[in-house]
């Protein structure tokens, strides 16, 4: 469900009220209602792709059940993983693999290419596939009991708040909540959920979509703009992707809370990280946890030789890059993050022991490194990414005058949104017990903060952008 759409504003109160009309003692009926809603919302986009969602659900459910009491558990889990990954590979990576192979063959003088697929990628496929695979591996490693109730498991995979762009929830977190009798109405959770939805919406429409106006003007036409403009655009993109994705995650977690569920935390003020390693403890936490649990640790993690450990880190972030998209730009982006973490580990710079000034310097350096890597993430080809970087570091001043200046109104609205986001993150990071507004103890302050946030959303939000960046992954 796209949270910044009229559909959501109309449908969500309806779903919310209908859900709470069902008495808490009928837990299964509530789950069934949520499952039907999840599938209907998924089918809003492309009905036939619900079959893929169902297919991945059935395959992993069946494989997990088969793992119980079989001697050939390795074969079962391998078959389950391959079958579950098949739609993802076909829809997302087939064209990329096909093109890359044919290019490689053409270098050797061989010309062979299979016809490309012209199908849209099922929305959220990377998220629900990884969530289902995580469950399967948890059962395989005996961290999780195989779920026998298909309704519960199907709802775990398709739960509508998180199916589009995560968080990628662990079965051990969500399935017990689905199986337990939830309270009829948890007032504190609903309030907290609404608060998260409100702030998430602010991050998306006031911050992300506003700075996107600068990014979308400059970066696609970087060759006509100065290095300063390209650098500002890259910083704007760094802010955009955070506000967009963290805003979405907050709304997803908020929607889950209003229905009485706790979902995985996904962001923890990532741009205050003191190293790239620290950044990954704060950015897309559900994915980095998944990668750690199912790639890094099974490969040996850090309990092996130094060289092997560096290799494990590199492969983990290579997978992260590949997960984000079928393009060399994502692979380079993933490798850059992997290499940075290896270097930090070699130099013992994963944490900060330098006091306030040192910490400030490290935060700025980390921000710039991450910002640099985002250029590869944003641009459509490696050539374009290198073009932007070359333009930023072009010291000849030959393009110095081609600066893109947004209108005074746009600049002011951009500064307002980014300023508020920075202030909130700064206070949450360094003064977590002070200056709380949306969850202040005094009702007057709480209500005023919520009203002002909503007013700012209406007055400053950009409502013409539909989609979240991560929805395409």
């Amino acid at each position, binding site marked *: 469900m796209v949270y910044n759409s009229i559909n959501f504003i109309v449908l969500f109160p309806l779903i919310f009220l209908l859900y709470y009309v069902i008495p808490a003692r009928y837990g299964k009926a509530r789950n069934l209602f949520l499952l039907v809603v999840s599938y209907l919302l998924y089918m809003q986009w492309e009905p036939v792709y619900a079959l893929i969602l169902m297919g991945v659900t059935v395959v992993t459910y069946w494989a997990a059940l088969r793992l119980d009491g079989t001697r050939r558990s390795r074969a079962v889990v391998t078959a389950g993983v391959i079958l579950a990954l098949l739609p993802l590979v076909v829809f997302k990576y087939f064209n990329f693999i096909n093109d890359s192979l044919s290019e490689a063959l053409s270098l050797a003088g061989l010309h062979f290419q299979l016809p490309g697929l012209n199908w849209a990628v099922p929305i959220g496929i990377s998220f629900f596939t990884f969530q289902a695979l995580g469950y399967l591996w948890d059962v395989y490693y005996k961290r999780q009991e195989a779920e026998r109730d298909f309704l519960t498991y199907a709802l775990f995979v398709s739960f509508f708040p998180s199916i589009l762009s995560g968080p990628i929830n662990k079965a051990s977190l969500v399935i017990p909540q689905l199986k337990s009798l939830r309270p009829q109405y948890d007032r504190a959770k609903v309030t907290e959920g609404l608060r998260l939805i409100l702030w998430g919406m602010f991050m998306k429409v006031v911050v992300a979509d506003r700075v996107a106006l600068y990014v979308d003007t400059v970066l696609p036409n970087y060759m006509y703009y100065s290095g300063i403009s390209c650098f500002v655009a890259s910083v704007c993109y760094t802010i955009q992707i955070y506000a967009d994705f963290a805003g979405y995650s907050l709304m997803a977690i908020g929607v889950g809370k209003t229905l009485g569920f706790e979902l995985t935390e996904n962001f923890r003020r990532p741009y205050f990280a003191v190293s790239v390693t620290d950044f990954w403890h704060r950015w897309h936490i559900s994915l980095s946890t998944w990668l750690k649990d199912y790639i890094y640790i099974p490969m040996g993690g850090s309990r092996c030789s130094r060289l092997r450990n560096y290799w494990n880190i590199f492969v983990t972030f290579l997978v992260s890059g590949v997960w984000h998209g079928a393009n060399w730009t994502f692979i380079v982006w993933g490798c850059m993050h992997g290499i940075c973490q290896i270097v930090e580990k070699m130099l013992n710079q994963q944490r900060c022991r330098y006091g306030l000034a040192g910490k400030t310097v490290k935060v700025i350096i980390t921000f710039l490194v991450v910002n640099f890597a985002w250029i590869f993430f944003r641009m459509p080809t490696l050539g374009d990414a290198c073009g932007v970087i070359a333009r930023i570091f072009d010291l000849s001043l030959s393009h110095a005058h081609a600066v893109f200046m947004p209108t005074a109104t746009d600049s002011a609205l951009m500064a307002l949104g980014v300023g508020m986001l920075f202030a909130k993150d700064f206070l949450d990071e360094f003064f977590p017990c002070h200056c709380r507004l949306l969850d202040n103890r005094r009702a007057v302050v709480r209500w005023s903060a919520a009203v002002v946030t909503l007013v700012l959303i209406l007055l400053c*939000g950009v409502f013409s952008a539909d989609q979240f960046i991560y929805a395409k992954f």
Partner: protein
Amino acid sequence: MKRHLFKIAAFFLIVVLLDLATGMVFSRLTGCARGGDTARNEYICNKTSEDILVFGSSRAIHHYNPLIIADSLGLTCYNCGQDGNGAILNYGRYHLISQRYHPKVVIYDVMPLYDLLTGEDNRKFLGWLRPYYDRPGIDSVFAWVDPMEKYKMMSRMYRYNSRFLQILSDCVRPAQEDALKGFQPIEGTLDTLKINPEVIESPQLDSLKISCLKRMIDEADATRFVFVVSPYWYGMDDRLIAPLRDLCRQRGILLLDFSNDPKYVHNDDYFIDGVHLNARGADEFTRDLVKRLRQVCAEVVQDAMSPRLAAISFSKRG
């Protein structure tokens, strides 16, 4: 649960009341704006009375000097061009204007991307019309663009979305004076870096934009439309305006195409970038245009003096 739901409802009630109040304040402030884009938009929609109006995008606002047109043709003129906008906004504005009076001539500067072809999200063209959503016929424009817009427009505050700072500053400290009758010349010389021809690889017609142009023509009872394609530094692929040519031929409307005029193509003296004339180029172009317009305007003056004759001539154009 009931008590909590009541509290949530109370919260939204406060927001609704605030929304209504803020909407009223900004509506009043819009009417009071003393300059800038707010006052200009208000003037175009509610106060114009000129004989000739110029419509179009940034190319209209920077290319047509109303003072030259007025001096040369003896008719009053105002430039209603708007940066980054095209047929959708211009139809809405013309619809609002035609509820008050019918200008004698509308000069419409065509830019294919904004007036004929699919491009950016059409919702972005509704911004300047939002404050006038309640006026007859404007809600239809919003519905054509996106049926969901009517829900957004239920919020009075949203009608001033992204413009409230501009409105406040235009009331308190107006930035621009409108001595040039809406015209905004760009001083300076050609910046070669900004000559980036817009390559439209597979142009697709936007049925909504074209239907807005058609509706504008259909609603122009006593207004004569002249479509103009002003000069481009790099010229323009003639195929891009083929649908407009057909439309003009069908409706008997004059189309003046300067896009590949050798006087302007690749003439660095007249341009600031690939698509915009500088002040010198704009004055020169306006003079050239006026020469071509004399004939039309002579007919208009004659029509105005002889209403019966006018009725005949318009029914012939049918």
